[in-house]
């Protein structure tokens, strides 16, 4: 009863914000916190948030919601309003971790007027768009059972974030400029991502069992292909879906996504060794989270110098000058950013870190952050390091570059179909409702929400809108 009352009050007092640009799609944020004094209604002091005009913390949260909705509203095309039932409320936390929020469709529908496929589940917002009308109008006497007909997407986010006991000190970034500091989380980026799921970037298939929702496929999963068998998920059996869902061999077949791959994704980076002939070839690399990305080729002679203590670990300054050289150093003892900075100070043009762990195949990336680093760095495997160290002085010449000869883009199969996230070693329940993390550049709908996202949802920065077009938007 309390929930009914709250919902009724919220709806009665609803401060509904509609965003529509250039006749694209109207999105209405239904403020379920209205009149409660919490969440969007919190009268607390504002925080530093560039571009956000809210005059209370609650208003700033709402402005961030409106900004994310406006981006989707401008990108989508629909004559039917999309209603997002939205709230900020206390969600689960610890001092070092937290549930940030959730979103998803309120309802699944099938066999509606305008459906492209029969016996196929659609999220209600997409179904409304295809039908050209609101398929499930709200009843006159709202009850909890009927509450979800009041909106097409439900979004619930954590109001405690940053407080003591809830990811202490690491709050939301409410600025609208995608320029959050390292210890904050960009709310607009998270909202764009989660709204994407609510609009249809999700599978209704039960990933634990591989079974379809109520015996029918969904419009998203119809475009998933199992590359082991070449069979679409819409036409296969639960055991195959369950197997491929956790083995990382599924791709998205949508025509628009596939066509836009070359304008969004890059060829994978590699280390191309050109001399001596005995070790020439392409070596896999992991890239760094600091310094410039691997784009234009950075070529030079590879040297393997010792630092001032006689070590190849480069945890101390070099005494030599390595102008125009690629400096190879060993992983271990100190942080990657420390090693690379010492090499940069010795005028290296790039750094190759040789792993010490033979199990790291392919080579992982180099983590860390140091804005003072301006040269590129990569990690190679333990085996590759041994091979190249033996050739130093020959001379050994290499280039850190994109592998133009690669038959795939970073994150696709050989037919430019973008891979979906299904990690090889994972507990049952692994997601297939995200792009794979091998995609490069970073995409909005990868599972990890990265700090370099631009708030764009479409090509040439992203492929989310293209996927939504492929399922019918």
């Amino acid at each position: 009863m309390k929930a009914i009352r709250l919902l009724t009050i919220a709806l009665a007092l609803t401060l509904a914000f509609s965003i529509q640009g250039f006749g694209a799609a109207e999105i209405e944020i239904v403020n379920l916190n209205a009149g409660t004094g919490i969440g969007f209604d919190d009268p607390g002091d504002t925080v530093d948030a560039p571009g956000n005009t809210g005059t209370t913390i609650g208003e700033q949260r709402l402005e961030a919601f409106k900004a994310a909705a406006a981006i989707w509203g401008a990108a989508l095309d629909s004559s039917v309003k999309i209603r997002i039932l939205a709230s900020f409320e206390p969600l689960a936390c610890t001092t070092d971790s937290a549930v940030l929020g959730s979103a998803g469709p309120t309802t699944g529908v099938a066999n509606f007027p305008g459906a492209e496929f029969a016996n196929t589940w659609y999220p209600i917002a997409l179904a409304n768009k295809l039908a050209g009308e609101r398929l499930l109008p709200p009843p006159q006497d709202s009850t909890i059972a009927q509450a979800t007909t009041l909106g097409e997407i439900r979004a619930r986010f954590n109001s405690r974030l940053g407080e003591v006991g809830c990811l202490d000190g690491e709050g939301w970034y409410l600025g609208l400029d995608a320029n959050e500091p390292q210890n904050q989380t960009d709310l607009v980026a998270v909202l764009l991502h989660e709204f994407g799921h609510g609009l249809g970037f999700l599978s209704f298939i039960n990933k634990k069992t591989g079974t379809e929702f109520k015996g029918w496929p969904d419009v998203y999963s119809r475009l998933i292909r199992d590359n082991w068998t070449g069979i679409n998920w819409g036409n296969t059996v639960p055991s195959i879906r369950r197997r491929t869902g956790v083995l990382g061999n599924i791709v998205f077949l949508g025509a628009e996504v596939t066509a836009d791959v070359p304008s969004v994704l890059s060829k994978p980076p590699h280390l191309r060794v050109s001399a001596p002939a005995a070790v020439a070839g392409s070596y896999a690399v992991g890239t760094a989270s600091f310094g410039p990305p691997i784009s234009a080729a950075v070529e030079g002679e590879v040297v393997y110098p010792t630092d001032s203590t006689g070590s190849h670990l480069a945890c101390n300054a070099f005494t030599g000058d390595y102008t125009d050289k690629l400096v190879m150093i060993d992983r271990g003892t100190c942080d990657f950013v420390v090693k690379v900075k010492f090499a940069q100070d010795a005028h290296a043009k790039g750094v190759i870190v040789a792993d010490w762990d033979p199990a790291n195949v392919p080579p992982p990336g180099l983590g860390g952050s140091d804005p003072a680093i301006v040269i590129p760095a990569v990690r190679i495997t333990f085996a590759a390091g041994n091979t190249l160290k033996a050739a130093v002085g020959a001379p050994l010449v290499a280039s850190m570059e994109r592998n133009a000869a690669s038959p795939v883009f970073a994150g696709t199969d050989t037919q430019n179909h973008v891979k979906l996230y299904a990690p090889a070693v994972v507990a049952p329940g692994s997601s297939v409702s995200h792009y794979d993390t091998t995609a490069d550049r970073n995409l909005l709908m990868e599972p990890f929400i990265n700090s370099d996202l631009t708030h764009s949802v479409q090509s040439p920065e992203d492929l989310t809108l293209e996927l939504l077009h492929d399922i019918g938007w």
Partner: protein
Amino acid sequence: MSPTRTIWLFVFAVAFLIVAGSFTASAQIATAEREAKVTVRKPTPQEVRALSDAMAASTSEEDQDLVVVNHKNGMQSVDLKGRFQSLAVAKKNSDGSVAVKCVDSAEEGTKFLTTNEKAPTKKITKKTEAEVR
């Protein structure tokens, strides 16, 4: 100054230098540690259970008790009852940054929050946990 007093002053001076040197070295180590890492602990089992429970309901993909409504126009609809939601979770990295991952099961979320799960770094991916050493 008596020889005894001189000896005592010498002993004090040596002791002072040793202690001061020790403090300086400790301070340097402490500074380096402060710059390199922040303190991060894993959730307790009770906290993990609370987080997992919170994630389980909204990410559930069970459909057996969800009701298919048949409409006059031939359409079917199912109120998802708050299930099939995608959930964003966050944790502190050892370098002080925050890693954010969207999950659609409690198992995936719990795994992310309780292990050193890593994703490949690509460009400027501060929110992506990766080995820093």
